[in-house]
């Protein structure tokens, strides 16, 4: 209901409205806090491992292998090789490496894999979708641009995604870049389709006609006038896609095609830990629960964004 005081109040900007809707949602607050914590961990990892060298995820201490969390290093370990905190906060793995240090290092790598893969996927999807939607009627010989791009999207959709990723990653030399690129190159089709639909419906509206009448080139119309109006669903998809990219990376690690050493990711810590489920359950549960929390946070944040950006979905 609109009360008189609402009418007197200055109209709230759309950004304010979205921010208020986000803040009002408990799940969104929780996921924002979780993600902030993970970012902080990644940052702390960079500082503690890279800059100060306080923690070392790569030091192998065989006498101290498979120690439970919070245990102290044994006396045989040289002082220089002891963990910076004095204890193994999250225990050690089968090579006596500090799991806490590896988890911190892994949080940065895991997030990077997720973000870069999604950045690639979203960029391709937005480019293909907006070109197909706005310049679709341009002819290339017997075909239209729209026809060519969308049939290509159909072709890509025909490949079973995980099978395709697995094939590509297995055939290419193992490297963290290949994994990010392959996950990105196989994940853009959905974005391309709905950006195209969005652009098609926006392109018929008067403000686009006005922009074209001013003589703006197509790239400027797309970038300045069309895409900002299609940004909301793209943002939601991107958020949820980061979550699935992290899951795909951990699945690849399980099959032995994940990010290769020396990089630690939560996925390959988890997959290494599965061999010690009984002897060292913390090696398995800690990265597993960490992945669960982060993926959950990204999904809930995506859901919260969807509801906040779409007034029709907002709870009354």
């Amino acid at each position: 209901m609109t009360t008189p005081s609402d009418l007197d109040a200055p109209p709230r900007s759309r950004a304010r409205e979205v921010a208020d809707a986000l803040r009002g949602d408990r799940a969104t607050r929780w996921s924002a806090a979780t993600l902030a914590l993970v970012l902080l961990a990644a940052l702390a990892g960079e500082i503690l491992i890279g800059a100060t060298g306080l923690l070392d995820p790569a030091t192998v201490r065989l006498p101290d292998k498979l120690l439970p969390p919070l245990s102290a290093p044994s006396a045989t370990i040289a002082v220089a090789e002891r963990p910076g905190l004095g204890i193994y906060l999250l225990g050690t793995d089968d090579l006596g490496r500090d799991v806490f240090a590896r988890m911190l290092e892994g949080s940065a790598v895991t997030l990077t894999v997720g973000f870069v893969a999604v950045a690639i996927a979203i960029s391709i999807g937005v480019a293909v979708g907006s070109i197909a939607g706005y310049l679709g009627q341009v002819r290339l010989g017997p075909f239209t641009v729209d026809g060519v791009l969308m049939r290509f999207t159909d072709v890509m959709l025909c490949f079973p995604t995980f099978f395709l990723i697995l094939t590509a990653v297995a055939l290419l030399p193992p490297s963290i870049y290949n994994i990010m690129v392959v996950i990105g190159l196989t994940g853009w089709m959905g974005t391309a389709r709905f950006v195209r639909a969005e652009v098609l419906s926006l392109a018929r509206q008067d403000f686009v006609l006005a922009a074209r009448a001013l003589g703006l080139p197509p790239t400027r119309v797309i970038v300045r006038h069309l895409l900002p109006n299609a940004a909301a669903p793209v943002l939601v998809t991107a958020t949820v896609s980061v979550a699935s990219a992290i899951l795909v990376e951990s699945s690849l690690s399980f099959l032995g095609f994940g990010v290769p050493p020396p990089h630690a990711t939560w996925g390959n810590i988890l997959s290494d830990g599965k061999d010690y489920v009984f002897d060292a359950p913390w090696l398995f549960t800690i990265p597993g629960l960490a992945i669960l929390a982060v993926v959950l946070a990204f999904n809930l944040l995506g859901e919260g964004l969807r509801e906040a950006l779409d007034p029709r979905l907002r709870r009354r």
Partner: protein
Amino acid sequence: MLGYLLRSLIERLVLLVVVSVLAHAMVHLAPGEPSEVDPMNPRMKPEDVARLRAAFHLDEPLHLQYAYWVRDLATGELRSFKDNQPVLPRIGERFMNSLPLFVLATLVIWTLSFPLGVQAALRRGSRFDRTTTVLAYALIAIPGFFLAYLVIIAAVQVLGLPVIGMRTFGAETAPLSVRVMDRIWHLALPTLMLAFGGIAMLSRYARAQMIEVLAADYVRTAHAKGLPAETVTYRHALRNALLPFVTMFGLMLPGLVGGSVIIEQIFAWPGIGRLGYEAILGRDYPVVLTLNLFAAVLTVAGTFLSDVLYALADPRIRLR
């Protein structure tokens, strides 16, 4: 309708050809070759490698290799690089192993998701709604093999269930009832693991659909007419909410090949996903390519099926 079906059938056939050409090119242009799988073996002389390449047509230009592959596939003569066994019977056998897993998982998904989703929508904001929502999100977010390991440990230590493979080794001579129960217990866990993700997704989708329909004008009208709430919910709302799910059925078909690699790997289930994984590891191109084509056929058939079913179920849609 008939014209549409014919045209879309032709379009989809062209699509499949393009997919197979692309897949073939991608697999063959990737670095490394089946003949180089064992480069450090001192007994592999250059002439042996050349002989292997000639035997597999790997020394021919790419388009000829594609033609060989299509010819062999069409005549059923296609043989694996690894063991020289015919590919099609092997895929057929693995397919029959995966099928019960897929069918059972699909049944579990569809029978559980709808009641869960619809109840959550009807009691929006209640404790039940919140619990199922959290559970669904957690099931989507948990890495599949992590959950599978936890469930396996629980099942073995607490219930003593058999978890690996399709049947207990050495139980072939046991009485029929024992063998049947053995098969069922072996099926139970992989089915459940395959179904979890689907239940979570589908029940969320059912809930969203139901909420949207419950807010529609015709539902309000039905209430205003004084119809009992039950009638409105199940006759007016539910029917319309279920409509989009007709298409989901077709779209889940390709999961038969790609969706179960991890689960089949964990449970040592000799299914089609695991066959693909082994073929990729061994660079067994004929198997990889044929499986890929099979998956593409399932995808295309799935979207075709969902188009047709949607047109049959929704009178507002006319295929032209």
